[in-house]
């Protein structure tokens, strides 16, 4: 006689799963459940983190010695272009979409996203454009190799004259990525505006929801500029039009405006949800309310608005007139004000708390520490005379890796650990998590801190070879990069083994306040199903005796029962 194991929720839920909840095949199907889509995004993105990381180690392998000796310089250029592209469009954007998918519906008490089919479509575009991008390694002439900026005229030189070339596939992949992001943004914004639980006014939303809203509105405002620019670039490359070609009266600098009008805000699209993650996690692990909740919430929109008027700071030395340089220097520096509000609020949240140094907390603290550093070098870069010296050098490379890896990726790791028990129903191994943190922090610091000095001394970015005086900084950086490569081992080991055979997670292992923690782990298909809670107070009322929802005990008991 065989015993059939089934989830009791299958019988109880009004909306039973189309297939059993533990059917792994759902992760490979056009599934419309936001939680499945979230995990699809995250796992796909982590796979590309490994590929992007491998390319990074090849780059650091080339740069460990001054001459260009590991690869032909053409190959080096292709590798660094693909490294940047993969990390941004195949790792960071998808993984943040994944976290947003997992977290937004449960956090606001919605059963799913507003447009589940569009949601699945947005995800399934990722493998499509990923494959197109990876195929470009195998076309004659190699992949795109003009940097992730893809500035014309270098990007439209097409040395072999083939119609299908790496650059063309690159533009197609980026445009599809843009379409996927726009679809996602429409979905997230609609869901947040229309599908919140009763009682959850804007000023009772968790900060993560605030930051997602701020970031996704930014996507809707900014992405059309890049997509338009990319289409024009495609026409110039493939059909010989002259939007940016000087031969027909075009202007190559115009592309830079299109590109940065979106691509600078893109950084905020990525960093805002990470600010949200910090704001969620610091209160949990210091057992205190978020300091100045309203200020932190509104500051997100301060960043959104300002980030739309800073793009020219990437073009201080392209012949931009003086008044424009001064203006954009000032707007760029202004971003330090709302970000400062957030940073100080986080530190004040920690102050006098009961700090628990769990793996997610360590990643948050490390991320905040790095972000303060990267923010300060950011203000330096906004300063026109300093930027004219260090712009396009390794100082910039070091600065933006401090933001994009040492802050954003740290926040992402924190989020993965923090919500891992919730969405997999398993606890991770704390010891392995701490090893992962230690290796990541040491590797990242060793990788990018020394490169600031290489840049200050005048080592241009994107070089395959360099003068010997820069060697010492590059040796340190390469060692750091290889440590980061090693850091992925405890992470993968932890994730895979915990998910397969980890201890079952209780509904609220961190004793956190938030709607998602009132659900069983993992939450049922439609989250709260018919019992949607009514929100009473601001989130993060740790130690304040203010219940977050009406009849909290009912949800706690329900989540334990179903557990």
């Amino acid at each position, binding site marked *: 006689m065989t015993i059939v194991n089934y989830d009791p929720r299958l019988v109880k839920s009004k909306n039973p799963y189309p297939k059993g909840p533990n059917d792994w095949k759902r992760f490979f199907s056009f599934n419309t459940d936001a939680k499945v889509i979230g995990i699809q995004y995250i796992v796909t993105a982590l796979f590309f983190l490994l590929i992007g990381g491998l390319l990074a180690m090849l780059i650091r392998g080339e740069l460990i010695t001054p001459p*260009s000796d590991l690869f032909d*310089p*053409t*190959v080096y*250029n292709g590798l660094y272009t693909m490294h940047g592209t993969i990390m941004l469009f195949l790792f960071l954007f998808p993984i943040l979409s994944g976290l947003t998918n997992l977290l937004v519906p449960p956090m606001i008490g919605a059963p799913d996203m507003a447009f589940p089919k569009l949601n699945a479509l947005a995800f399934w575009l990722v493998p499509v454009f990923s494959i197109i991008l990876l195929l470009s390694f195998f076309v004659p002439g*190699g*992949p795109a190799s*003009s*940097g992730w900026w893809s500035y014309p005229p*270098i990007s439209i030189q097409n*040395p*072999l004259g083939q119609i299908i*070339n*790496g650059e063309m596939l690159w533009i197609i992949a980026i445009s599809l990525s843009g379409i996927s992001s726009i679809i996602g943004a429409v979905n997230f914004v609609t869901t947040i505006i229309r599908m919140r639980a009763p009682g959850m006014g804007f000023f009772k939303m968790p900060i993560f929801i605030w930051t997602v809203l701020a970031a996704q509105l930014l996507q809707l405002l900014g992405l059309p500029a890049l997509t338009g620019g990319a289409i024009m670039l495609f026409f110039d490359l493939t059909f010989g039009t002259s939007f940016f070609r*000087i031969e027909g009266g075009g202007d190559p600098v115009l592309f830079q405006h299109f590109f940065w009008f979106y691509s600078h805000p893109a950084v905020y699209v990525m960093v805002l949800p990470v600010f949200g993650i910090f704001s969620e996690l610091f209160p949990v692990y*210091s*057992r*205190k*309310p978020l*300091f*100045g909740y309203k200020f932190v919430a509104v500051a997100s929109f301060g960043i959104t608005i300002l980030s739309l008027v800073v793009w020219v700071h990437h073009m201080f*030395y*392209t012949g931009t007139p*003086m008044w424009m*340089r001064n203006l954009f220097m*000032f707007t760029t*520096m*202004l971003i330090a004000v709302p970000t400062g*509000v957030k940073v*100080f609020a986080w*530190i*004040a949240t*920690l*102050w006098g708390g*009961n*700090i628990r140094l769990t793996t997610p907390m360590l990643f948050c*603290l490390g991320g905040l520490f790095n972000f*303060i*550093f990267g923010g300060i*070098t950011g*203000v*330096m870069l906004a*300063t*026109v*005379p*300093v930027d004219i*010296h260090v712009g*396009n050098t390794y100082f910039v490379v070091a600065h933006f890796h401090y933001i994009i890896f040492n802050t954003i990726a740290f926040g992402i790791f924190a989020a993965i650990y923090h919500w891992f028990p919730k969405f997999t129903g398993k606890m991770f191994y704390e010891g392995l998590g701490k090893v992962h943190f230690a290796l990541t922090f040491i590797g990242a610091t060793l990788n990018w801190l020394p490169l600031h000095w290489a840049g*200050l*001394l*005048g080592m*241009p*970015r994107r*070089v*395959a070879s360099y003068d010997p005086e820069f060697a010492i900084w590059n040796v340190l950086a390469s060692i750091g990069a290889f440590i980061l490569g090693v850091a992925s081992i405890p992470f993968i080991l932890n994730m895979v083994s915990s998910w397969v055979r980890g201890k079952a997670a209780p509904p609220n292992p961190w*004793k956190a306040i938030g709607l998602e923690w009132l659900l069983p782990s993992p939450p049922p298909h439609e989250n709260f199903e018919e019992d949607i809670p009514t929100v009473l107070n601001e989130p993060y009322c*740790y*130690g*304040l*005796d203010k219940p977050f929802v009406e009849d909290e005990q009912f949800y706690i008991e329900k989540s334990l029962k179903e557990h």
Partner: protein
Amino acid sequence: MNTKIRRIKKSGFSKTFIISIAVILNITFSLLMGYWSYSWLPIQASEAAHYVDNLFAFETTIGTFIFLGCSGTMAWILVFNRAPKYDESNGEPLEGNLKLEIIWTLVPLLLVLGISTYSTSVNYKLENLGSKIKYDYGSEVPFVEEKKVFDYGPIDVISRQWNWEFIYPNGIHSSELHLPVDKKSNFRLITEDVIHSFYVPAFRLKQDIIPGSVITYSLTPTKEGVFRLRDAMFSGAYFSENQTNVIVESEEIFYKWIKETVKKELQNGLNPAGNLYQKRLRNGNRGWATVKPAPDPKVNDAGIESRPHDS
């Protein structure tokens, strides 16, 4: 509420004492960092350099103060606010403090106002950039009259994939850029293909060179020596080889060089990228696609590729 007061209440005096010691230490170290920051930069070899370095030192000082202030507070919290094992109680339930929040909005605002005013004033002092004139592709590069005062020039700076060529007012072609010290030299920056960038770290100056435009640019070297000129805008396969030397000489030696070089025959100038490309062809043309490097420039002074440089 189950907040436990674990920490011993410090008296007002000892609190003030600890904070003032911390602030004094922070200020001292920040000033030291500002002082050290000059040593992180290359030799100051142009009029612009000390303005840029002073601004950078100023920002390093302020930045260090903020960074240490924040991370020091974090370190303090990590040492003194750690929850003992199995203690899952809450901390002090502070929800905010309006006064504090207004202060930390206004102080950064004033700070960035200050920094941007300071650097705007530096911008007006530097004023290296002249005019940017567009011209039709394929036609002669137009002559642009520089409205600003300069002592020597205009020198045409021709950038290519991947070599540099400098044409002096008397018709000399050179692979290296010779400049008289303490004289304001004027340039017309021209590219024959893609975007390049004229970057001399020792001068702290960088200017992109845009296809279809001629940009006038002036600078005053203040130190004799050999400095690297690096292309700072990615320009394709052999981008990292697109470097040459700037040789700053006394006026006497400079004019002597002009006089002697004008008599020299045209010869092949520096073209490291071209040599590497030939090597690649000899090895079976492996690697990914690239446009062919521009041919060797024909110059009167061919320059020395391995000339030792000061910075």
